């Protein structure tokens, strides 16, 4: 069999796992990553739901996998231009590097919604307001309490920030933030048991195995209070603490509370360079601005352009389990495509 080259754009969990699978099948892979290191968002997380294993563990495993003679990893590299000539793609990369690929897999993942766009929550304005991603960083430290200037007696988590929100034109659910809030609220309690923890949600989306169990644990074991209602605004009071306004939609009454920390569960939005990529490869973009696959059920890893494949969070918000499955499915579809 003549060796074929596959270009994979984006070295997050999806791109890494697909590279490894294709390499094992005997193909040559060029893994292109725009950032300085591989691993994608896995680099930013401390522990993972649902079993709360360290993210580093998984990252190590993926890194070992891509350390393969058939895989060339190119970091700090972007795709500038693409030319197509009979079933081959010519990719012009940074520094005028050119690679020829028989197939292309797109795994550009997602970006965190810019929480400053919901100005009413005060991100970037009040220093007591942080995001889920910021909190993962804070968890890396041994002593959480020491990270805050003032004692944190109460913390509130806000779900659906930048998701399910017509005002920011993101109608979809980001899927992982509910369970992330449950996980993070437990982790908070474990480190600072005296702190009161509230979660403000619209619906609890506990879709994966052991997610519901984690939610039950949060309530029963840790006494975390879940309030159904959307926070309308956060503001600073005269004494400098943070006040939030919300409506408790189960009790149907307005609610006002002071809190020392507000954690915004920022959702997922498509990666910034996706528009450029969609133009280069003539790929369809869905109403939700993520890439659109050829067929939702049967050909989820295929795009409308022959030889160009899709996997992971560049298709829709998803967790790592689904990302890895999609990466392997894509590898198989690419293999079929190249050997036929």
């Amino acid at each position, binding site marked *: 069999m003549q060796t074929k080259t596959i270009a994979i754009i984006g070295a997050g969990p999806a791109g890494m796992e697909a590279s490894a699978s294709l390499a094992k099948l005997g193909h040559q892979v060029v893994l292109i990553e725009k950032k300085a290191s591989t691993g994608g968002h896995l680099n930013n997380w401390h522990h993972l739901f649902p079993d709360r294993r360290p993210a580093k563990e998984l990252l190590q495993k993926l890194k070992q996998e891509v350390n393969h003679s058939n895989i060339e990893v190119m970091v700090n590299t972007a795709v500038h231009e693409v030319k197509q000539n009979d079933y081959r793609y010519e990719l012009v990369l940074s520094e005028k590097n050119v690679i020829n690929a028989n197939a292309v897999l797109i795994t550009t993942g997602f970006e965190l919604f810019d929480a400053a766009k919901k100005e009413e929550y005060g991100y*970037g304005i009040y220093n007591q307001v942080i995001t889920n991603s910021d909190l993962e960083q804070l968890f890396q430290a041994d002593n959480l309490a020491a990270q805050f200037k003032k004692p944190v007696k109460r913390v509130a988590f806000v779900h659906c920030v930048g998701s399910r929100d017509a005002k920011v034109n993101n109608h979809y659910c980001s899927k992982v933030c509910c369970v992330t809030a449950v996980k993070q609220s437990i982790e908070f309690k474990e480190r600072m048991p005296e702190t009161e923890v509230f979660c403000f949600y619209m619906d609890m989306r506990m879709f994966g195995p052991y997610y519901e169990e984690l939610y039950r644990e949060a309530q029963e074991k840790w006494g975390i209070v879940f309030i159904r209602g959307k926070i309308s605004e956060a*503001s600073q009071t005269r004494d400098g603490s943070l006040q939030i306004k919300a409506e408790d939609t189960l009790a149907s009454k307005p609610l006002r509370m002071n809190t020392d920390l507000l954690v915004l569960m920022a959702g997922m939005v498509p990666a910034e360079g996706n528009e450029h990529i969609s133009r280069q490869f003539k790929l369809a973009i869905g109403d939700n601005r993520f890439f659109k696959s050829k067929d939702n059920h049967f050909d989820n890893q295929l795009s409308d352009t022959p030889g160009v494949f899709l996997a992971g969070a560049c298709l829709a918000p998803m967790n790592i389990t689904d990302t890895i499955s999609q990466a392997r499915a894509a590898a198989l579809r690419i293999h079929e495509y190249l050997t036929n």
Partner: protein
Amino acid sequence: MYYDPFVLPFTLGLLLLLGYLLVKYGTWFWQLDAQDKKKIRYRLLTRRTLIALREIVAEGLIHRKIFKVNPRLGYMHMSLAFGWFLLIVVGAIEAHIFVKGSAPLYFPIFFRYFVPDQHHFFFSWGFAQLMDLLLLFVLSGLFMAFAKRFNAKTVGLKKTTKLKVVDKFVLTALWLIFPLRLLAESLTSGYHNSGGFLTGSLGAVFQYLFPTEPFIYPAWWAYSLSLGVFFVGLPFTRYMHIPTEMVLIFFRNWGLKLKVNNPVLKAVEIYSCPKCGICIDTCQLNELQNTTKSQSVYFIQRVRNAENYRELAENCLLCGRCESVCPVGIDLTALRLMHKTDFSENKKDQFAFVSERTNTADVIYFAGCMTHLTPTIKNSMEQIFKQAGENYWFMDKEQGACCGRPLKLAGQFQAASELVSLNRNMILQSGAHTLVTSCPICYKIFKEDYRLPLRVLHHSEYINELLVSKKIQVKKSTISVVYHDPCELGRGAAVYQAPRNALQFASNVIENGSSGQNSLCCGGSLANQSLSENNKQNIAHTTVHKLTDNNPELIATACPMCKKTLGAVSAVKVVDIAELVAKQMIVKPVHQKQKAVSVAEFA
């Protein structure tokens, strides 16, 4: 005695019309409240009436405003109205000179029939030419109106209005009047070898082609009939605007204002619309797909035909763009708002739970509910107040009632007035001399409904004053900024210059094609609850697109709602004036208490 039965359709039609108008306007007058009647009584014999008369000539006949917006359309309206008016006046003079005294009502109209051979009286030749010239003038306008029916672009409009069946019938009668007059006069002139340059020549041609005599009498009948039908039909069509616009002009000059529970002025405004359609092209809802056509002309039409207008009343941004171009000067936003009350239930005593609190201060700062959703604005304002050394009270910092205008915009006037009196008490007790608000929506109600004995300023005006009096100073940045006029502040409250001045202190202001009176709506209007978020964003997109014509580095506005709406879709950063000024402000050491906060402080 000059009489023939063919004058009857005209004469009866005219009498019926006058009778109808007398009853209609009489009823309106009778329905006016005591206050309005008093105003009329006191102002009837003042200069106001003369001004009104002048306006009637300028607008009702010459259509000066339409001319300004669209010269071709202006000419069309002027030639029809003013031309017809002159025909009547000159015709009456001519008839008067001829009979040397008074003549029946119809005599001047059918003068050529009764006096076909007019070589015998003073200036008769001149009259013949003049009357022909006027007829030609009217016919040219008629020709344009005809073309407009089939292609709105001929008069420079993108869209025109649709007609009802009666409208069509009466419109046909109207269109026939002048061609029939031309025909009747030409036939008569041809037979008698008289007439001016138009009717005379055309008559000669007719006479050359066929014997005109048998057609003369039927032509005059047809002319009289078309006039009669037009007069009788007029009250049931849009042509009611011709007499009603005059009533409106008088009322306006006598100081009568639209009121929720006064049906008269509402009706007068509704009947004054000639359906010119100018409001259609200017409305941004035009560009959207799948929305009901709810531009002012359609809304007025529905109300007038007593059809259900709820959906139309609600689907409007109340941006005031149409009002600023309406040649009749109908108060389109207020009118629409008042009709919204017809559908909103008015709840009473909703705000019993709000407790009154007050503080003594020189200046009250009322941020407004919307500003609480854009905290950078209120924080910037607090920095500015502190730097200016102002003794201020942040009235709605933690708790505070809404200003009431959102309720008003939803048509809940009663509930709104409860909030107004609640807030008003607190404001009065504070002893402040100035009230500053960050939100143009609040600003408008403070100015218009609160009747406050203190200065009410929008923060852009206030900041401008501080900058001019050097109470605060800024470092001018070279960044290029385009200013977006918020609807409620610009068209709504005529504040255009202060924000630009303030911005110019701190940055380099560039203009764009649609600013000031013509500025576009951001789409975020609180008034329109029926528009989908998606459509609101479509409007915002277009607005950002036009605003960034000249590639500014920053979009500045003076309204929290505009900031949020435009910011959600704009690639160019959108800030409020207060933010920009606070950022460029030279902080004097005495006041330096605050420093910038950032997330980094946690790490």
